[in-house]
């Protein structure tokens, strides 16, 4: 209690002036009462009491001196003094502020991203009752369709259910054609989400069915692309939609959409075979998820039996929408946040070490101040203000850096991170940064201030020794901590780098040089004949462009994942459960461009006018087990008995850089299937910049409602597949380098001050016959001992956090001896480099001069 009141007395004004006034009035009244009892009239008594009391205003101020504004004044005075002190040491001040700014800026940037991605509410009224319903067939995730949605909507534990799919439409905007991202909603969307509407109205029940061409604009789209103008018609992919309302700005799901548009009625009432729909359901209030899940399980079994052709082995599971949004990103974001917090801690430790060194210089000042009556608390305050000023300036600068930092993170972090685009510096982030700055001030300043304020007598000759030894031990401990943290961060950085290198150094098995990736997305509602006519004519047109050797089309480039899966049976081989396998569309040119070899048989031929299939090597090896050639095999899909020919086998194309073994895949001619997201591959040595305008021109000529989404070299395009690995290793790697640098600065500071303090001792040693190399060895041995302890602690930390790290960073390679050896070498080299200058200075010690050195 007394400590608390003392602290409060040091840091906070205690009492307002009117309180003091009140207390004194009480005193006077009390005295007046006494005087009345002695026989004075009340007026006389009061006058006398006041007279006795004397000039109350004079000592009211004296009383206050011990009190209110004096505290503020003390802070101001101490601040002024500290500022003067800092101005005398600009290099120290600037380095400290700059390093704190980097640390706080990085922490604040990552916090704002984590805040947007993980913590911010979705801002839908029932967000805690909203769940995603994941359908799966035989345990393999698959999408839903309108028919099954209607089945789920009948369940009694659900208040409402709806579905949506994403679609890219082309908007004939004021500045030419632009791609807009639309969420195609199904019936039930308003009842399920109950989205807050900022302007206009939502969809009516009839409109949800997709009979009207209407749309809801997201606030972002309305503000930035419609310039906050009046609601009106908008032309999308050749069709006019009426915008009936604008959604509230804060809605956080689904992410990065421009418009909500009811899916066309034909789509909503489409076939039970389709599997592209994402389902969102809202549980009835107070319904436990387990109860709803039980009902869903029963319904799934019922559907499996009722529709064996399409719904066999159906299962569906609830997943909280909030959890889903942040699940994947949470661990790796938190790991990154932990890394920058480590770096910030090292920055604080370095500043603490510098302040400690300064504290030893300030001993005589402290002694003088306390001899003149300064209390311990006021000394602590004076010295702590230095750390506080540095931290607050660093924090202010850090926030300005964080504005840039958030933008950089938005560029480099995987775009798949939900709600990443929402990340920005807001009041929460500012408050957080202020908190971090204060913490940094406490972490870096409190111990040095405490030690520096130790009461010592002016005359006490030995006073410095114990304080100095104490602060010296502490600084040594700081350096050990820094070495340990560096070891932890560098090891993690190196392992992430290894993971990335292993991914990218694998032979990829296809051509990337002189290949151009051109993406042309059609809306999902495009008519199939129109799509295929466009594709065929575009392939012909593209082939005539200058410098283009060959062109092909596919649904998805290698290394970027798959698109569709199918249940397939091989005639005479597959009995029972069909094979659930990946399915691609392609034109024969695609295989030529990508340098995929035909291993057996021939390529499919459009002129044959029948469905023909090509399988990859992995598929042939695994499933064509009867010894017959591939060209003798036949396939059928689902439960149908329409058998089609396999005509050839091609070499494997990897779907995922992390996959050790290639996925079995089936290819069919693009006109045999419907896939409107067209990915063209050009074989050409003409630069993208030269071809781009020509390609755009040809596409516009063929279909005015569609636009080219991207044109880039294949080498760049497929980097998206390893983007996560590259980014995390770059981010963690650069922070590890920063940590190494901070460690080196810490070591340098310690040894440099050591050399200064022992200048005389070294002089004596030299005079007594020691050699410069032997003195150097002394310092190196000292640093080596510290490094060994720190390194051991760091590696222990690596081992202790091993599980956490593997959970946070997928594909992290095991800790290898070589890795540890490399980190050890890096730390040894950095430590040695850090003490080069102090080592060099030893050579300049002149014994005679050193003895007179003070």
């Amino acid at each position, binding site marked *: 209690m*007394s400590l608390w*009141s003392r602290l409060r*007395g040091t840091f906070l004004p205690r009492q307002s002036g009117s309180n*003091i006034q009140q*207390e004194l009035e*009480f*005193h006077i009244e009390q005295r007046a009462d006494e005087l009345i009892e002695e026989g004075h009239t009340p007026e006389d008594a009061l006058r006398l009491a006041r007279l006795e009391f004397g000039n109350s205003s004079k000592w009211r101020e*004296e009383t206050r001196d*011990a009190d209110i504004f004096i505290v503020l004044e003390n802070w101001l005075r101490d601040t002024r003094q500290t500022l003067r002190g800092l101005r005398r040491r600009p290099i120290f001040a600037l380095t400290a502020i700059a390093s704190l700014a980097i640390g706080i800026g990085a922490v604040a940037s990552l916090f704002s991203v984590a805040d947007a991605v993980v913590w911010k509410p979705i801002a839908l009224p029932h967000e805690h009752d909203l769940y995603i319903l994941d359908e799966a067939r035989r345990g393999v995730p698959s999408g839903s369709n309108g028919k099954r949605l209607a089945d789920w909507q009948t369940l009694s534990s659900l208040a409402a259910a709806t579905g949506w799919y994403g679609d890219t439409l082309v908007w004939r905007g004021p500045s030419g054609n632009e791609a807009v991202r639309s969420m195609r909603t199904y019936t039930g969307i308003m009842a399920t989400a109950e989205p807050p509407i900022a302007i206009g109205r939502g969809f009516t029940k009839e409109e949800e069915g997709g009979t009207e061409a209407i749309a809801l604009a997201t606030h972002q789209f309305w503000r930035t692309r419609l310039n906050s103008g009046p609601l009106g018609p908008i032309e999308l992919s050749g069709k006019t939609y009426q915008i009936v309302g604008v959604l509230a700005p804060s809605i956080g799901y689904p992410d990065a959409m421009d418009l909500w548009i009811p899916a066309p009625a034909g789509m909503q009432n489409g076939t039970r075979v389709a599997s592209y729909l994402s389902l969102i359901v809202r549980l009835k209030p107070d319904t436990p998820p387990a109860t709803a899940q039980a009902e869903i399980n029963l319904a799934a079994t019922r559907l499996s039996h009722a529709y064996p052709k399409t719904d066999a082995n159906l299962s569906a599971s609830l997943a909280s929408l909030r959890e889903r949004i942040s699940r994947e990103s949470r661990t790796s974001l938190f790991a990154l946040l932990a890394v920058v917090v480590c770096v910030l801690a090292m920055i604080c430790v370095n500043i603490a070490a510098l302040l400690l060194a300064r504290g030893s210089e300030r001993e005589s000042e402290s002694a003088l101040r306390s001899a003149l009556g300064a209390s311990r608390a006021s000394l602590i305050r004076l010295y702590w203000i230095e750390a506080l000023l540095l931290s607050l300036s660093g924090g202010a600068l850090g926030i300005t850096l964080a504005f840039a930092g958030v933008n950089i993170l938005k560029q480099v972090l995987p775009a798949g991170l939900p709600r990443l685009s929402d990340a920005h510096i807001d009041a929460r982030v500012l408050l957080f940064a202020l908190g971090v700055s204060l913490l940094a001030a406490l972490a870096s300043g409190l111990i040095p201030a405490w030690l520096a304020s130790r009461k010592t007598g002016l005359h006490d000759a030995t006073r410095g020794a114990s304080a100095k030894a104490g602060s010296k031990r502490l600084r040594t401990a700081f350096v050990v901590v820094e070495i340990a943290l560096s070891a932890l961060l560098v090891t993690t950085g190196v392992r992430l780098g290894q993971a990335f290198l292993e991914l990218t150094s694998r032979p990829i098995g296809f051509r990337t040089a002189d290949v151009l990736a051109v993406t042309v997305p059609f809306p999902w509602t495009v008519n199939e004949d129109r799509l295929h006519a466009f594709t065929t004519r575009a392939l012909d047109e593209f082939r005539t462009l200058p410098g283009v050797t060959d062109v092909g089309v596919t649904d998805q480039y290698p290394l970027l994942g798959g698109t569709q899966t199918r249940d397939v049976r091989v005639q005479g081989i597959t009995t029972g459960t069909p094979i659930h396998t990946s399915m691609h569309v392609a034109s024969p040119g695609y295989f030529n461009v990508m340098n995929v070899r035909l291993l057996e048989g021939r390529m499919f031929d459009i002129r044959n006018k029948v469905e023909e299939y090509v399988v990859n090597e992995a598929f042939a090896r695994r499933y064509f087990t009867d010894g017959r050639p591939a060209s003798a095999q036949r396939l059928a899909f689902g439960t149908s008995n329409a058998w089609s020919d396999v005509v050839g086998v091609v070499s494997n194309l990897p779907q995922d850089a992390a996959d050790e073994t290639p996925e079995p895949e089936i290819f069919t001619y693009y006109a045999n299937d419907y896939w409107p997201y067209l990915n063209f591959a050009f074989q050409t040595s003409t630069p993208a910049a030269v071809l781009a305008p020509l390609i755009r021109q040809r596409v516009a000529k063929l279909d005015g409602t569609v636009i080219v989404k991207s044109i880039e070299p294949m080498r760049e395009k497929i980097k998206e597949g390893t983007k996560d690995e590259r980014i995390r290793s770059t981010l963690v790697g650069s922070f590890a380098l920063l940590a190494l640098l901070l460690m080196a600065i810490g070591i340098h500071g310690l040894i440099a001050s050591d050399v200064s303090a022992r200048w005389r001792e070294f002089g004596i040693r030299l005079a007594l016959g020691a050699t410069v190399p032997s003195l150097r060895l002394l310092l190196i041995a000292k640093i080596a001992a510290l490094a060994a302890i720190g390194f051991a602690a760091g590696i222990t930390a690596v081992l202790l956090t091993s599980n956490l790290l593997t959970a946070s960073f997928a594909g992290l390679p095991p800790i290898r001896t070589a890795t540890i050896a490399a980190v050890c070498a890096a730390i040894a080299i950095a430590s040695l480099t850090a003490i080069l200058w102090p080592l060099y200075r030893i050579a300049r010690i002149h014994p005679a001069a050193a003895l007179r050195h003070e």
Partner: protein
Amino acid sequence: MAANKSDILQGTLTLLVLKSLSQSRALHGYAIASHIKRASSDALRVEEGSLYPALHRLEQEGFIAAEWGLTETNRKARFYSLTRSGRKLLRDEENNWARLTAGVAGVLGFSGQEA
């Protein structure tokens, strides 16, 4: 000179305040002043001009705690009480005082013998 007689020796005000507070649970400023006056049989008079700054200083240093409360006559007053560190300070001050008075007495006694 007569006026000086009732002045309180520099530095002893703290001791007197602490001692007064130690004999009761909580006292307001006026009661402290009256107590000192009464206990010293009117020999010591506390100047209000030094009493209140001293009280606030002691409070700020954590030796006494203050709280607003009501007197028997239902007036709002600020009541002071000793904290644990205040009790310790009182012990130290009492010892100091005992040493000082013993010392002064010794000096006076010694010079008296000389004479």
